[in-house]
């Protein structure tokens, strides 16, 4: 007894309004117009007036298009057969593979009971010293990559996905350039990782509402895998496109914007996605890495700003490198005390010295005289950038720590580093 309506009262942006009764909030409907068939969901009910957000957009919808309510909210199929497949945000295959309909699960489901979470305790190895040594990524962490357009963030994501020892990779693409989508897919495929991956992809040319569905679909699927005991890595790129899609829709809904046009609930909306990252007591985990491009390289822009308040740190990608300043893994303390006894020492010392190097560079550029100490710092900085920061460096944590000692001992005397003598005795390379 699904109700069908043939009169659309209002069309604005991707939102249509019909007069209907007995319709539930968030219920799905099928909208059939000369443009074809699209799903839509109820986003507001005001007496008999029902607003629906049309996934394919309202373009071409006529006032006599057909709206058929299907009596349930948005769901996505879930099974192991999702692995290796690519879908749109609404779960339609975009890889010419068969439609999957089994075991539908709700998207945007309830939040995990905090009492069922555990303190994260496992490191995710990436082979990238700027991460492993200086800002260790931790299982169940949610971390954005703050980047300006044009930086190789998708390459970085793909590389981390490949090196991280996870059971399942779920990739959510939002507003992806088609080339980037193909790059990511091919990269996973060529490296044999596609068979443990599921992709939900919205490209820049797809309807905007579908962009909104991508993170929810990706995270709902990730959650199911995690409940089954899998360690899942979710990659989201680019969350700024997601936020912009929300902004666009909020504006067509005539909501009062709070900050640069973004809706007042931007924080809550982003948080409800990011908070899906979890380490379950007695089951698997979800780790989220999400690209957030910063319009105008401005962290105080509402999207990176709200994101930073939600996530457990951030990586800044700038000039093809992960910046040591500003980048932060808030969970690193949980793991870097139990990797190797010199981990924290190397981390702190090398960063402090690099900061001094930056100051020296500044002094140098202002024409001040360079002392012997400055000269040492200059040598150190160059090596640090080349041997540690460069993204092409790919070595395990232990090798990176060893390398740290070598660089330090090549550039400084032990006491100049401020490292406690106990550590020096144990690790400082003996010259000979």
């Amino acid at each position, binding site marked *: 007894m699904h109700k069908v309506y043939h009169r659309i009262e209002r069309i604005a942006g991707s939102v249509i309004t019909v007069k209907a009764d007995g319709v539930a909030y968030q219920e799905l409907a099928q909208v059939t117009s000369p443009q074809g068939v699209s799903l839509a969901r109820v986003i507001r009910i005001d007496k008999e007036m029902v607003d629906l957000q049309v996934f394919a957009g309202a373009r071409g919808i006529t006032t006599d298009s057909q709206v058929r309510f299907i009596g349930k909210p948005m769901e996505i199929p879930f099974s192991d057969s999702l692995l290796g497949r690519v879908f749109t945000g609404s779960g339609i295959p975009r890889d010419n593979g068969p439609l999957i309909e089994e075991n539908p699960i709700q998207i945007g489901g309830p939040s995990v009971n905090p009492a069922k979470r*555990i303190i*994260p305790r496992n490191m995710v190895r990436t082979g990238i010293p700027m991460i492993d040594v200086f800002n260790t990524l931790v299982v169940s962490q949610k971390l954005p990559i703050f980047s300006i357009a044009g930086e190789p963030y998708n390459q970085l994501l793909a590389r981390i996905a490949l090196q991280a020892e996870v059971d399942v990779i779920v990739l959510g693409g939002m507003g992806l350039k088609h080339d980037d989508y193909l790059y990511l897919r091919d990269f996973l495929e060529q490296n044999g990782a596609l068979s443990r991956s599921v992709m939900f992809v919205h490209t820049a040319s797809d309807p905007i509402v579908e962009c909104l569905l991508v993170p929810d679909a990706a995270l709902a699927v990730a959650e199911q895998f995690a409940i089954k005991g899998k360690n899942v890595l979710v990659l989201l790129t680019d969350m700024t496109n997601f936020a912009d899609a929300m902004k666009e829709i909020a504006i067509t809904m005539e909501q009062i914007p709070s900050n640069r046009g973004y809706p007042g609930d931007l924080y809550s909306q982003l948080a409800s996605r990011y908070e899906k990252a979890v380490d379950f007591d007695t089951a698997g985990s979800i780790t989220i890495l999400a690209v957030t491009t910063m319009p105008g390289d401005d962290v105080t822009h509402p999207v990176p700003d709200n994101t930073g308040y939600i996530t457990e740190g951030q990586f800044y990608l700038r000039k093809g490198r992960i910046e040591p300043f500003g980048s932060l893994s808030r969970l690193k303390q949980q793991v870097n005390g139990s990797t190797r006894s010199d981990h924290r020492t190397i981390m702190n010392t090398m960063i402090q010295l690099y900061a001094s190097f930056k100051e020296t560079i500044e002094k140098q550029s202002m024409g001040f005289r360079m002392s012997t100490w400055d000269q040492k710092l200059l040598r150190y900085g160059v090596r640090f950038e080349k041997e540690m920061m460069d993204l092409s460096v790919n070595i395990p944590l232990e090798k990176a720590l060893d390398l740290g000692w070598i660089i330090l001992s090549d550039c400084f005397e032990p006491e100049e580093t401020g490292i406690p003598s106990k550590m020096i005795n144990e690790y400082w390379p003996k010259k000979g």
Partner: protein
Amino acid sequence: MASIGKITGVNGNLIRVAFVGAVAQNEVAYAKLPSGIKLKSEVIRIRGDYAELQVFEDTTGLKAGDDVEFTGELLSVELGPGLLGQVFDGLQNPLPRLAEECGFFLQRGKYLNALERDQKWAFTPVAKVGDKLTAGETLGTVPEGIFKHRIMVPFKVRKTVTVEKIMPAGDYTVEDVIAILKDADGNTVEAKIMQIWPVKIPIKQYSERMRPSEPMVTQQRIIDTFFPVARGGTYCIPGPFGAGKTVLQQLTSRYADVDIVILAACGERAGEVVETLREFPELNDPRTGKSLMERTLIICNTSSMPVAAREASVYTGVTLAEYYRQMGLNVLLLADSTSRWAQALREMSGRLEEIPGEEAFPAYLESVIASFYERGGVVRLKDGSIGSVTIGGSVSPAGGNFEEPVTQATLKVVGAFHGLSRERSDQRRFPAINPMDSWSKYEGIINEQKVQEARHILAMGIDVNQMMKVVGEEGTSMEDFITYLKSEYLDSVYLQQDAYHDIDAACSADRQQYLFDKVYEILKTAMTFKEKENARGFFLKLTQITKDWNRVEFKSKEFKELEEQIFKSVAEVATNA
């Protein structure tokens, strides 16, 4: 009689309900899903024959025409023994018990009693038959962990009542009646171990409110020495993300010199609550030797939990704090972050289509914030004992810019401002409280005159540093250079504190006084150096040893040795040496 209504509109977590009968502002109602699940809601606006309600849950599936049952009661909490050590959501549902029943995920429409109904408490009567008492006066006590939990004349009692009957010592459940009270008009009131109180109404069953004058030692040097907080005072910690608001609150919740700590995790990360949740039971409170959890209560409405319950969570927190204050205890309420609650108000206000104020926050934001912080305070109870509620709220300003409505509204009402700066946190100078912008109206634990001098040195050091950026070290006089090094020294060894070090993480009041005197002495020592390079080298080393000094047990053998070493090296550079 409670009224009923029908839903006419759904917009996110706001529903519009046509009702018959009487409905009160802030009354609780339940919206019924076709499946029978009832979603808790609160009336937030009434217009003619319809009311608007915020639903504390996801509203997916609600329809126009669905039933709404009003309860006739305001949003309330249960007060009684057994609250401490618990972890509640914003509506006072115990999360661990919810997890036992529902598993990994929160289930909407599932509500549990805050207090266990079958647990027995050993009641000892204090009042006697014939005693004339008023609301908040003690009828008896039960032991709750390390505290003597007072069972009081229900707060809602308006007049003097006479004790008609009081139960003898024995074990009772929270629902057992332990006294029968009668007022002058002959109305009887049954007092149980537990009582119910609406969260938005302050508990004021005391005889007078006093000026907060006693310091609440947090064991963070920069706070206790430079920007102290008083028991019963209020303070705020605004700062951009990653500047250290949460870590600072976590440290305070561990080390603050109070009886009870209530943590209201409001709209922030779940993971941070989990840290407290999992670590506190393992940690000992040095004051009592018992687990820290025994003095802690967590209200947890993290960012992905229902937005409308954020507001409820801070009120639930402060109401529970006031309740324990009524027992003559010092309670600290820490809310992280008040901005999330303000944003929840903004979301609601937007859906109500109210005329927006600055950054779309509602025009009443200021008064709401002010009346929340007003609930802090030191009071003299009716029996003469003193209790306090201290409130510390973090603020998360958009873009880290303090010129925004929530920070500004908060600054108008609090007694101390601990402004965290991005610059300091980037330099890993923790706690990243900006020593130049922050302020406190409370008295601290160190002689104010000396603190002023120390502040002055910091300010001068910053000036010299600014100047040096232009003229270089060569263009700076030796005297200025030394001032700069001294201010950096003060910053490194006193303002900064290592949160992750067993000993340095907390610095007792005694130790602060001791350390401050010594550092002050060094700052006041005139020094002579040949070259700036020598001066720099000297202070580098001095800083290192002083930091080591901070990291050893107070007054231990090592402590004394390091102190000697410090003063020996200072003597070597002192001008008159």
